[in-house]
């Protein structure tokens, strides 16, 4: 194993549904992909091309039918549910198109949620960590506001802070700006870039917005369940 393994490695990953039935369908074909530490990669492709399925497999929310998936050098196919859950909790952060914040909790409490899952009872260290993360996404003055009293852009920034709570190596962002206006989308994207540059966190961003995709280090295009192109952007140069 290399000294610094890639944060993510997919090797011949396939995904089928309705296995063994006449209507078996393969939605991902022989996917191979590597993401290095500190990369900011855009995953693009038309609707129904398999982007979300691929993201679910990478996020360990779903299992591939064939192929191997490595997270920080750790092969995941033989891990049981408990180990998968533990790995997901520690190594991967999620940001979805909808923020999915718990509306009855404040921004600070929402950011603390992954820490509470790990430690059960809140402590001062957790408060400080959540406070720092909200500061990083520019929401210090909003930390005691209830999630449903914030704007869409602010809620998505809280969701980014929450995704970073466990200091994951990889953040999977599934169209995080899809529900936002251009200005808010730009702000959220810049926040993610800022975190990527400051913390060295690897981001895989699913987006339909080509302007944002071009601002990433690399664009991976999926069409009909296959990676058809992987190209660096000008931002890399």
């Amino acid at each position: 194993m290399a000294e610094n393994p890639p944060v993510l490695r997919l090797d011949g990953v396939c995904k089928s549904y309705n296995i063994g039935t006449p209507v078996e369908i393969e939605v991902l074909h022989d996917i191979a992909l590597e993401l290095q530490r500190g990369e900011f990669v855009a995953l693009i492709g038309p609707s129904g091309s398999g982007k979300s399925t691929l993201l679910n497999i990478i996020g360990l929310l779903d299992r591939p039918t064939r192929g191997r998936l490595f997270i920080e050098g750790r092969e995941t196919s033989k891990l049981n549910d408990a180990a998968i859950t533990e790995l997901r909790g520690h190594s991967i952060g999620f940001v979805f198109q909808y923020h999915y914040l718990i509306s009855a909790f404040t921004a600070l409490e929402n950011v603390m949620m992954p820490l509470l899952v790990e430690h059960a009872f809140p402590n001062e260290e957790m408060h400080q960590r959540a406070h720092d993360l909200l500061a990083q996404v520019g929401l210090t003055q909003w930390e005691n506001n209830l999630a449903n009293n914030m704007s869409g852009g602010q809620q998505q920034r809280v969701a980014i802070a929450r995704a970073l709570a466990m200091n994951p190596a990889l953040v999977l962002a599934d169209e995080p700006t899809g529900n936002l206006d251009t200005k808010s989308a730009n702000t959220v994207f810049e926040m993610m870039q800022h975190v990527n540059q400051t913390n060295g966190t690897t981001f895989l961003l699913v987006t339909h917005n080509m302007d944002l995709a071009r601002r990433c280090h690399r664009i991976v295009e999926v069409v009909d369940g296959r990676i058809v192109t992987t190209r660096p952007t000008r931002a890399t140069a």
Partner: protein
Amino acid sequence: MQTIFIVMAVAIGVAVIVFMSALLLSLQANFIKRVLTSQPHIQLIPPDEVARPLREPASDRVLAPIVQRPAQRIRSIDQWQKIKSQLSEWPDIVTVSPTMTVSALAVRGDANRSITLIGIDPEVYFKIVRVPDYIIAGQPRVLTDDILIGTELAKDLGVTLGDKINIQAATGSSRVLTITGIFDLGNKSANQRTTYVALRTAQALSNLVGGVTTIDLTVPDVYAAEEIAQAVQAATGVEADSWIKTNVQFFTAVNAQQISNTLIRVFVGLSVAFGIASVLIVSVIQRSKDIGILRAMGTSQGQILRVFLLQGGLLGFLGSLIGAAAGGSAVVFWHGYMRQADGSELFPLILEPSLFINMVLLAAVIGVAAAAVPALRAAKLDPVVAIRG
């Protein structure tokens, strides 16, 4: 709001169970007390006399094949003193009281009434039948020439304390006794017929000097009386009847009451369980996205399961606390409000702490059990499906 409603539903269910249970427990205890303070738990009586067919000694041929059941004479229990000593040693028996029961006529002037004369040793007999508690005039003194009679007999014969009445036994013996006490057993027939005299007096009147016709027993566990009676019968060879056997209808009523109480508990418990389960299932459906996100954040299936089981247990626990307090208060209020015509209480109220503790624990367990299905459903939610909705 949903939580408040289900907690209230649990509370109402528990309140109904506490109210019903406390009421039935008190009623039942009162009935049993009334029955068992006027009769022994077990009574030993001599076996019936049986006629056997007459046979020719040499050939064993039956000479008189028609056998008529013999009339049952008043007989003493064989070796009753030995049996008394033997039973006094038994750990399952509290009191042993030999008695002599005789049919007699109470005569005063032109008036006479048929009575049952019970000869007793008051020191032990009053531990079984609390005659002193029922004395309304005079005192429970039973010396050789004393007699205690019921209110109805006193009225019928026109006698009062200190008056003398002539007692004529069926055997032909008679004796003049002085009324030292008048009692009210709460039953007109018993007040007409039952009288108490000294054991020695009854023995003399029945021409069975030194004999007894029954041995009365009490036991610590009244519900074990039948089993103990059978053991006594096996050990002594004397017929032993428990209060359960001689009060079959009463005991059946008590059992029916217990069964109906249990059924009420079961059905109320089931309705509480289904209420909690339905609320939690709705909660799982409403929160499926949150559950999905929590799973994505690293929450294990076990943690999700525990959260919902805990929620079910807490709903049951909280509801039962409120319900137990409400049910207890309601039964105390009802007991205070419902009085007899003379203003006295209907019956003594029994509120055992174990009833409340058991109900709270039971409701918590029902809550956890009811949460099992929704909790499993929540734990098994596929995070991808949950997040996509």
